[in-house]
């Protein structure tokens, strides 16, 4: 029997790029409303882990269940509509305006009608204070604006989970604050989140659980209270000593 609030269950996830084993068997379960922060050194497999969840990377082995349904090549396209993702480099569609970026998927996939999508886009844009940019192309926006729009683009789909892949790593300090406070707000509104980040202080603020990945394995996991103050492994102690 599975818990009714279980959103995601990952079993023995492995991923290799040719001979390079990036993920070496990850077991992980995500529950409704959790905010999981994924920490770890560069090249540890954090991003690959995140990108395997919505199959932007094809797993080499293992199973991923989303709401008790095993994700396969066949049902992943549908599942992605409910698994939002925010990228390090924003990935707004260059040939579309801000408004078109927001409405493309919900309208094409018939989740919303065009007037509904536009109305929702207007509300979200107003909320982040970027209403005046609705007809702008991504090339004319700053990094922080792009990322906030990328976040509301994911929200347009009413996702059940939001995956953040180092959302602030490509931003300047001022923009980082804007983006983090938007993520913070989503977290407060009971969004289920997995975030890969290097912002340790932010991680402490929002995390309900922290997982530490090194060399393709989860080395330690636990609530932030114990993870940051009383880690059990030497590897995490060493990591925290260096970053804090």
């Amino acid at each position, binding site marked *: 029997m599975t818990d009714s609030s279980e959103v995601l269950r990952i079993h023995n996830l492995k991923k290799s790029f040719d001979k390079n084993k990036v993920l070496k068997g990850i077991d992980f379960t995500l529950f409704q409303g959790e905010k999981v922060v994924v920490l770890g050194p560069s090249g540890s497999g954090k991003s690959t882990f995140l990108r395997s969840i*919505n199959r*932007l990377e094809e797993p080499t082995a293992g199973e991923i269940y989303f709401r008790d349904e095993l994700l396969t090549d066949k049902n992943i*396209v*549908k*599942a*992605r*509509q*409910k*698994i*939002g*993702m925010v*990228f390090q*480099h*924003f*990935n*707004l*569609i*260059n*040939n*579309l*305006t801000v408004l078109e970026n927001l409405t*493309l*998927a919900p309208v*094409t*996939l018939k989740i919303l009608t065009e007037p509904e999508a536009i109305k929702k886009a207007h509300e979200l844009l107003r909320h982040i204070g970027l209403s005046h940019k609705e*007809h*702008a*192309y991504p*090339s*004319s926006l700053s990094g922080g604006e792009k990322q906030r729009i990328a976040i509301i*683009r*994911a929200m347009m*789909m009413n996702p059940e989970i939001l995956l953040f892949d180092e959302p602030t790593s490509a931003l300047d300090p001022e923009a980082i604050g804007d983006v983090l406070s938007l993520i913070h707000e989503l977290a407060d509104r009971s969004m289920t989140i997995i975030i890969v980040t290097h912002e340790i202080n932010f991680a402490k603020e929002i995390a309900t659980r922290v997982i530490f990945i090194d060399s393709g394995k989860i080395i330690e996991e636990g609530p932030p209270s114990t993870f940051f103050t009383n880690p059990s492994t030497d590897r995490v102690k060493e990591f925290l000593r260096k970053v804090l």
Partner: protein
Amino acid sequence: MTDFFTKLIELFNTPEYMDSLLRGFLLTIEISFFAILVGFALGTIIALIETAKPSKWLIIPKWLCHIYTTIIRGTPMALQLFIMFFIIFAIRDFPELITAVLAFGFNSAAYTSEIIRGGILSVDKGQKEAGLALGLKNSTIFRKIIAPQAIKNIIPALGNEIVTVIKETAIVSMVGMYDLNMAAKDIGSGHNLASYIVPMFTAALFYLATIYLITFLVRRLEKRLRKSDNQEYAI
């Protein structure tokens, strides 16, 4: 020098010569126009096969595309033209124009496919991933995201290919077709004008004017597309 100008005026004032040149010019344009269309259509198909995700259904098509582009790009255009005229379409009363269009079209397809392939690959990987992450189908991603950006990237190279085809069609005179190049030679070898330089100079002007016009139009298109890239609001 005065002789050159006198003969140039004579050429422009003799309807017979002008008719020949215009007839030749028309054929050059006809062959080029249809060959470019054939090349673009076939080139697009080849590029799509080559850039498609590998699967067992595509092993043979991908291999055929590779062989095709290798052979076409590795042999002279003039030889391909001869093969089309004297072997493949050596059928009595088969329209020469179609043979020529196919010869140049098949040749251009090999180059155009490379241009289009490059254009598709030049679109940042993140653009496709954004579409995938939103739950869009591959076909939608291609139509709404990849293709519009790829087209913008390939316009300069495509313009170049059009210019190349127009100039290359001059070799149809080798199989006896009466194109602009042939017309210049024909007029020059006649007894009345007794000058090669004047008709060839004129033919050169025709080619140059055509290519200049195309280059100008391509540049304008390029500029317009780039503008919408950097401007804050859509035009």
